[in-house]
């Protein structure tokens, strides 16, 4: 067991966990932020995507001991739950079962930060690490474009 001070969604959290604990389980079980989902545990499906210093990372494969810098989860993506991507997702009625969607949104948010007006190909590539078994991909794409139109990079 070791103590870690983590900056998550601009708030400092002190957790006592074993150093090899993946950030995912620290977020879900220790901090109580359960919007970040467990899907595969090997960085293959993207359900656990969060931002570390603005880059999308898979928190299921990232040990807490390696976290340096700012972590942003779906709960901290926007101050009032109104990030352009979140709005676009609701508007395009993307979600079916909904389980993968927080991870999808976090990947999309990282994309819009570096490419405010992505092409279809940019989206395909940036979202290639996120699986949706319900098959909502086309609505996701539509929502990313819609958010980009509204200045989703913010």
């Amino acid at each position: 067991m070791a103590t870690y001070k983590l900056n998550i969604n601009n708030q400092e959290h002190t957790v006592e966990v074993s150093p090899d604990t993946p950030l995912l389980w620290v977020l879900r079980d220790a901090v109580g932020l359960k919007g970040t989902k467990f899907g595969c545990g090997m960085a293959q499906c993207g359900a656990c995507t969060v931002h570390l210093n603005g880059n999308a990372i898979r928190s299921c494969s990232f040990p807490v001991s390696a976290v340096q810098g700012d972590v942003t989860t779906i709960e901290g993506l926007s101050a009032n739950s109104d990030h352009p991507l979140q709005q676009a997702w609701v508007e395009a009625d993307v979600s079916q079962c909904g389980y993968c969607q927080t991870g999808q949104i976090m990947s999309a948010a990282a994309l819009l930060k570096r490419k405010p007006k992505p092409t279809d190909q940019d989206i395909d590539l940036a979202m290639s690490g996120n699986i949706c078994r319900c098959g909502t991909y086309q609505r996701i794409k539509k929502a990313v474009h819609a958010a980009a139109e509204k200045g989703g990079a913010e």
Partner: protein
Amino acid sequence: MKKRILLITGLVFGFISAFQIYSDQTNELKASMERGKEIYLANCVTCHMANGQGVPNVFPPLAKSDYLMEDLDRSVKQILYGAQGEMKVNGVVYNGIMTGFDLSDKEVADLLNYIRNSWGNKGEIVKPNQVEKAK
């Protein structure tokens, strides 16, 4: 924009054929690296970090990595099929698991051109047919 300047540069000095070859190669590498960067940000940044530094003792660095630069064929295989077990990178032993990625030959070439020419690395341009052969 940069591409266009380079292209114009290429046209102006067009009749100096040696320069043109050099310029085409540079253009090709730059374009490939640009595509590779997107692939990197989508797939690799999660462990190797945006600056290629990896995470000390957990995920090996790509930046100035002896291990990366010494064996191109091995890199191709690792990208496509994953890697596990011990590996020594810049004198440090890592023992983790990397999963493979579903990428086309061209995408692997682009990715390799990006990581082999960023963060202080310098490597020859990699072409898709080299990837095909190394698989």
